[in-house]
């Protein structure tokens, strides 16, 4: 097909025929109604727009649509359906790691990327893994704890 591309969005093959230079962030929110992807800065500084691209954490505000041609994109909406999400969700709740919630979709996907690379991360590795995800509310300690708990309780999932 001329002037179009396909990519896998939350497990579904998707045809896109819009602008190649449009931000993945805007397209996910406006065209596919995936509003769990948040916009905090559009400068790559806050991580609210994090998605997983071919297994790696990226900022969707820093990604043009042409870059995802032939690739797989997972947003929080897709990730919610997994067992791993359930383990993280439970761990975050157990230490009240969520306040306003704005950073949380990105934070959860960053957590997934930490654990998929290393099922038993040290505290330092967890902090490094979420260092591009800013949170105005929690002071990070509860989030770091939650990821540690998910690693323990969800042992075998990652």
């Amino acid at each position, binding site marked *: 097909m*001329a*002037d*179009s*591309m396909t990519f896998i969005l939350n497990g579904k093959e998707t045809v896109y*025929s*819009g*602008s*190649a*230079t449009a*931000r993945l962030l805007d397209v996910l929110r406006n065209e596919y109604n995936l509003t769990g992807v948040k916009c905090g800065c*559009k*400068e*790559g*500084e806050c*991580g609210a727009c*994090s998605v997983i*691209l071919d297994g*790696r*954490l*990226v*900022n969707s*505000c*820093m*990604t*043009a*649509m*042409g*870059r995802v*041609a*032939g690739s797989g994109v997972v947003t929080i909406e897709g990730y919610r359906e997994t067992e791993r999400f359930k383990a993280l969700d439970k761990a975050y709740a157990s230490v009240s790691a969520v306040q306003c919630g704005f950073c949380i979709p990105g934070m959860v996907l*960053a957590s997934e*990327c930490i654990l998929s690379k290393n099922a038993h991360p040290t505290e330092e590795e967890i902090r*490094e*893994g979420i*260092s*591009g*995800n800013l949170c105005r509310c929690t002071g990070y300690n509860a989030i770091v704890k939650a990821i540690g708990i998910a690693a323990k309780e969800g042992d075998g999932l990652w």
Partner: protein
Amino acid sequence: MVTILANGFVPESLAECLELKAKRSLTPYAGGTDLMIEEDRGGQYLFLHKIPELKRIREDDDNLYFGAACTFTELLESALAPAILKAALSRIAAPAIRNTGTIGGNIGNGSAKADSALIFFVTDSALKLSGSKGERLVPIQDFYLGRKKLDLQPDELISEVRMPKKWLSKYDYQKIGARKSLAISRLSFAGLFAEENGAITHCAVAFGAVSDVIIRRKDLDSLLIGKTIPDAKAAKSAYIKAYEEAIVPIRGRVSAEYRKETCLNLLKDFLNKMGI
């Protein structure tokens, strides 16, 4: 096969890519982490992420070769990337930026703040530039002609970085920034050193983010090469003085004087660490 979009192309081989570049005015898009924050994002992008020739990491007896579209994370995960390069890459921004940003984009952006480019300067790496008429190899020092001015023709791409293996083992890398992750480096320093039977066989230093272009002065480093450690100690103040004259800082967010003084302190620390 090339995927064609309204205002972009996604080629799957270097040949397809160069053919497109020769015919049209296209902006190479590697990771997009510099491009996506530009004010004016009109025009058409040429996406480089699906070109296997630009993703290769390999070696021969004398050199390491890094494809221009390798991301920082891919290099950090590679057994072939040397420690000095990993020291710089691991301190770039946060994981999501390292997963996206590439060395070709870091160099192609033309900034003296580029952290991987600093390492390519101090290691005397060369760039392979590929165009419709063939390829050429340019030492990275000659590639930067001035602030944001590069020796790159409209039909050319940076396709590979060639890094000599010799002299990589003993190094120093320092980055002085406001915050550890994020925030582009305000100042950075890299040095290489080698001695054999009491004589200095190699000494190379480079300063990033202080001037329009990364500073690398082989002529000044030759003041120490060949000397014994005691002779080098005697020549130390002349060497530092030479750099004091060579470093001409541009006024940036941090004052010019502070930048210059910090550079000289980093140089002195380096000499101390190397026993001079």
